[in-house]
């Protein structure tokens, strides 16, 4: 694991494959599901309490890693803003012909606008493809953690982890 999360700061492919919260290829192909990129034994469990379907299991002790019951997850996305580690994203490989959608927490200003074309970035912050913002959700229960959904070419869907921040400050 010399090139893994605690050296590079992001998960390697191998770490992702072994993560108990990462869905299988078969399940991903069937439609929207979350990917929980949280693999260290940290004392944390709001994700477990956030899921009305009981699809996320931590149990006791609280340092257990989140396990995803991929048959129970309906892809509602409710858990995304509740995770203090911003480790949960929602992937829908069946979004449209050729395109997939990826939803992730985004706590920066200015927020992107629906319909805007953006650059999608991977776990290392490198720009990988362009994307279209299809949803920006920030209801009160998100407690200031907006969730942004972008549509990207399907082949990039499992790499995309966010969007390039716009550096310009909002005028006015």
């Amino acid at each position, binding site marked *: 694991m010399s090139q893994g*999360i605690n050296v*590079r700061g992001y998960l390697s492919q191998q770490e992702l494959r072994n993560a108990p919260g990462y869905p299988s290829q078969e399940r991903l192909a069937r439609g929207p599901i979350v990917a929980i*990129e949280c693999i260290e034994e*940290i004392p944390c469990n709001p994700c477990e309490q956030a899921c009305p379907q009981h699809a996320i299991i931590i149990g006791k002790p*609280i340092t257990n890693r989140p396990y995803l019951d991929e048959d129970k997850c309906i892809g509602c996305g409710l858990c995304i803003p509740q995770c203090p*580690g911003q*480790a949960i994203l929602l992937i829908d490989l069946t979004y449209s012909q050729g395109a997939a959608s990826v939803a992730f927490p985004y706590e920066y200003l200015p927020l992107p606008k629906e319909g805007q074309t953006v650059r999608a970035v991977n776990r290392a*912050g490198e720009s990988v493809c362009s994307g279209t913002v299809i949803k920006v959700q920030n209801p009160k229960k998100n407690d200031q953690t907006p969730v942004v959904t972008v549509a990207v070419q399907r082949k990039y869907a499992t790499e995309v982890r*966010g969007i390039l921040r716009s550096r310009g400050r909002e005028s006015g």
Partner: protein
Amino acid sequence: MREVDLSIVGAGPAGLAAAIEGAKRGCSTVALDMNPRPGGQLIKQIHKFFGSREHHAGTRGIEIADTLLHEAESAGVEVLIGAEVYAIHDSILEVAQTFGGDSPPPLSGGATTSQSRPLSIEARQIVLATGGAENALNFPGWTLPGVMGAGAAQTMSNVWRVLPGERVLMVGAGNVGLIVSYQLLQAGAEIVAVIEAAPRIGGYGVHAAKIRRAGVPILTSHTVVRASGESRVEQAVIVKVDASWGTVPGSEEELDVDTICIAVGLRPNARLASLAGCKFDYSPSLGGWVPIHNTRMHTTVPGIYLAGDLSGIEEASTALEEGRLAGICAASSLSKGHVGDSEEIEAIEERLLSLRSGPFCQRLQDAKQKLIEIGEAQCPKE
């Protein structure tokens, strides 16, 4: 001279929790805090907390501070702000109150002694919850304006809404370095790099991942060797560190930055505990010199308890639990305990144990265990 049952020094999560438990049990309780706003570090923690529901997980620190203050108020705790305890002898606290009550805090945010009011408080029991202090790092140029503790940068940005700089080098990839980097990004600064002398990132992977995907490089096995600039930081020189902590010749790299934040750990802020005569033990895993205490958070000095980072650098969640424990035990030593307190204490101990489980906390848990064992032998029993 004011007389109270219980006086708490430091109104952060540990101190407020202790004050709430004490006051709920009928102790007349005063909580003193030297800052213009109570809440300790919580008031600058704008991120959502980890932990479980009992520890307000998923809630932002600043909201936890509001909840605690509200609880303290309704329990009847008197919170004095701008109140700096400068001496402690027999069970008397000598306090300089620089503002508070009806007078507004000074604009500088600091103490102005000419205006301070002296106050003596005799407390039957005392809980010290003075928190932690940031460690410094010395290198040529470290006194230039622009070099500051990561906690200081966080206070500037999140409490006073002043961006400390535009281009920041963060030194230290523990949770503090990672979280403050993220918050400075949110505030509009650029984090040029986060460097870490150890070969591994010390903080949680999820915090590291957050700033990595925002494009911030994290360089392990790197340290800062020099800062330069005319009247403030303009450049930082970083260098690779080898396996034996030596610098690698020829690996120097110059970065254009206007701010260098130091996040190389915290230590217990123990000056008052030392003045009070508490005995100490040295424990690197807990942050350095730590006052010895037993399972009931009692120090080696009769009538003086402690809680939170003062008893070893940990998290706000553990500080809350230790504070509760100290408050309950201090009240019970005044025969003001509630029925059911022993079950309550057991429940707290269980939660503390679970918070300290897992690989991130193993060393800390062992160190705490050792400190408490010493405490069981040396601290007075009620």
